[in-house]
């Protein structure tokens, strides 16, 4: 067991190192931050001073070395634009993104599971055919397009919801959270629905597939035969069985939700990490771009590591296979 975990840890470490090099060299190939940051009036002397103060006069390998040396100590460099540690800037924005992602996830689950189970139970009814067609629409609609359409409809024409931004923030259990006030909730609603659409379709499909599969199983037939009510069968037996794939996939997809918030945050001016990334790309704030990507790499590598270890605990075959190889 421990051999397996150590192997996987080493692999994860290797991935982080390789990715750091790819990300760093990729980002450092692009453009020249000086040209973005310098004022029109600045002369060559001022430009040279800036180049030096940002360490851009050093060769690439030296810059990368310095980055790694600092990164090992948890310092991912200072933002060119804000002159604050890039990591802090991102962590500062993280709660907003997490809030958005969690609300979106809740929307996807709360609406997706009942709809999916319905479609699975009565696959040939008109309602469930509409649900399935609707879920294809949810897959197909580009997020950015839906976002702007929602702003147009709900904020501009109907005036029900605020168009952009985040509402008042309260500190709850040490976390800055906005959803618990009406103002905050009305702000988060549109972007969260927008972000949730894709996952909603996914949950509907998983729930439907799960339900259809389960309904053919013998134990359900047996439960029926025993005379259990339909609602009990659905609530206890079907739910239990579809929750496993739904939870697993959503756990894995949470990272994707965070990543895709790049688009939603741009449309709705939501002050989260994704918007910071797009802004930083525009301003060529290399340390922030690199730090963001490294955080994402870290996040994904360790979610996967966690899942792998979990699986290996549940299913010894995985472990054996790996050791054999």
């Amino acid at each position, binding site marked *: 067991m421990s051999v397996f975990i150590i192997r996987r840890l080493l692999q994860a470490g290797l991935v982080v190192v390789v990715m750091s090099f790819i990300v760093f060299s990729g980002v450092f190939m*692009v453009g020249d931050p000086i*040209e973005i*940051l*310098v004022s029109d*009036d600045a002369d060559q002397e001022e430009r040279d001073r800036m180049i030096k103060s940002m360490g851009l006069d050093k060769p690439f390998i030296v810059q990368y070395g310095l980055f790694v040396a600092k990164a090992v100590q948890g310092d991912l460099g200072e933002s060119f634009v804000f002159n604050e540690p890039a990591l802090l800037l991102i962590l500062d924005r993280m709660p907003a993104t997490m809030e958005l992602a969690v609300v979106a996830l809740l929307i996807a689950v709360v609406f997706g599971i009942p709809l999916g189970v319905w479609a699975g139970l009565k696959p040939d009814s008109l309602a469930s055919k509409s649900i399935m067609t609707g879920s294809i629409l949810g897959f197909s609609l580009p997020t950015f397009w839906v976002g702007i359409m929602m702003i147009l409809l709900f904020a*501009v024409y109907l005036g029900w919801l605020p168009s*952009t931004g985040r509402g008042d923030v309260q500190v709850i259990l040490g976390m800055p959270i906005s959803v618990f006030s009406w103002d905050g909730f009305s702000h988060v609603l549109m972007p969260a629905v927008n972000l949730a659409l894709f996952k909603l379709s996914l949950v509907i499909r998983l729930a439907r597939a799960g339900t259809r599969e389960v309904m053919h199983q013998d134990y359900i037939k047996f439960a029926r035969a025993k005379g259990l009510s339909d609602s009990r069968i659905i609530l206890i037996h079907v739910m239990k069985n579809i929750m496993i794939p739904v939870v697993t996939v959503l756990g894995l997809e949470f990272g994707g939700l965070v990543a895709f918030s790049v688009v939603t945050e741009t449309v709705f*001016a939501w002050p989260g990490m994704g918007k910071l990334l797009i802004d930083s790309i*525009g301003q060529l704030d290399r340390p922030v771009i690199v730090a963001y990507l490294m955080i994402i790499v870290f996040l994904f590598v360790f979610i996967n590591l966690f899942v792998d270890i979990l699986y290996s605990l549940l299913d010894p075959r995985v472990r054996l296979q790996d050791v054999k190889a």
Partner: protein
Amino acid sequence: MKPWRQLGLAALAVVTLSAPVQAADVVIGMRSEPSSIDPYFHNLGPNNGMLGQVFDRLTDWTPGMDKIFGRAAESWKAINDTTWEFKIKKGIKFHDGSDLTVDDVIYSYERADGYEGGNSSFRTYTKGKTLKKIDDYTLHIMTDSPYPLMPNDTTTVMIMSSEAKGTGAADKNKGISAKDFNDGTAAIGSGPYKFVEWKKGDRIVLEKFDGYQGSMAQPWDKITFKFIKAEPARVAALLAGDVDMIDNVPTSDIERLKNEPKVSLSSGVSNRVIYLHMDQFRDSSPFVTTKDGKPMDKNPLKDARVRKAISMMINREAIVERVMEGVAIPAGQLLPEGFFGRSPNLSAEKYDPAGAKKLLAEAGWGDGFGLTIHGPNDRYINDAKIAEAIGQMLSAQGIPTKVETMPKNVYFKRASKGAEGGLPEFSFVLVGWGSGTGEPSSPLKSLLATHDKDKGKGASNRGRHSDAKVDSLLDQALATVDDTKRAALLAETTDLAIGKNQGIIPLHYQVNTWATRKGLKYNPRADERTTGIDLVPAN
């Protein structure tokens, strides 16, 4: 010395006139967020605009950039060729209650001059100047050579309290970090508004400073700036009533907003000219080709007649009407009407396709040639569309032109030094220039003077235009303290560099538009800044 330089009385009247005091809060939706609350960190439009409300400067521009008025300074004059004397107003208080004296000014200039790290600093304006305290309210600023632009330069550096945090510590940034400013500890100025908080990516909140002594208006009790980068989202926020004003109104929405009863628009010409630079230094320019796209060993752009012909092929009125939706002014030189040192002889080139063809034939290029125009797509108003329109116009008139636009983060590096040896990569580029000093000396120096790293000239001369006569005229102008004479010299330089040499092709002056809800109006600023001070109730 003109009278207005002595004391901006007229300007004071302009600034104070408009706003009856009224208790109210206002929310402004802005496109660009400042990068710091530290006034010396980054010489950048959004920073200078935002922080100018919190910190005073010695002098400042009126919204139209036609006059300089005193903020911390009461009066100023050149007492000899190399010394300017500034009298500081008495009784100015900082937000922490302390008095503003010459010590604070010197402290601030020293901090600006010695700022370590960070971005484009204010050293450009502090370099070569020695500040000397005469008494608490008298300051001498000395330079090595005659320096006419002193009151212009003092509109840049902001003044902070020297007691804000750790007086004059010997360390590089005087013991204050960016964080101390961003959380408000060190953000102690003497301007009309106090800094309250900054939620990055979301908002900045300012509050009226009750002890304010200066001449600027304080029309609001609390000003909230929300940062909404996406254009449609910003317009939507205004229409939905979430904000009272937005800046950088997209030109595509102007027509609609005009008809919107809830909204009024304010627009004003800016100090920014959009122009074309052409490769004038390579015999074989990479993006000048034969008509069917093959490389050439001759560069027609080196011929001033060809450059003029290109200028004549561009229908500026059409660009203004169709691309800019009427909100731009066709340009014939570096600054729009009303600015200091303009040439009276130059107006926008007339659209004249027939004349252009004749001129091309005269220069031996009657059969045309191929070009590629390069431009940014996220820097100036409608930049990519302008480039495309020019591509259309030249293509239709025998110069098949490809259009390539890219984000500014890639564009400017390539445009300035993308080719081997740090030379400009492109042959034909679309760029803009905003003159911070309010007169043509800065664009002349950067765009049209011969490129010379050591002298700090021609830093943005991406076509490498070079004419010794232009250089010497400009040097002369830059050393002339007398305003009338300098204005004449600058006009003459412009006439030569643009009118005769066609060193650049000016397209139009940018017009900026702000949209407010009905009942408010914005005094449009030529420096493109968005402030709460210039947003006032309409009568």
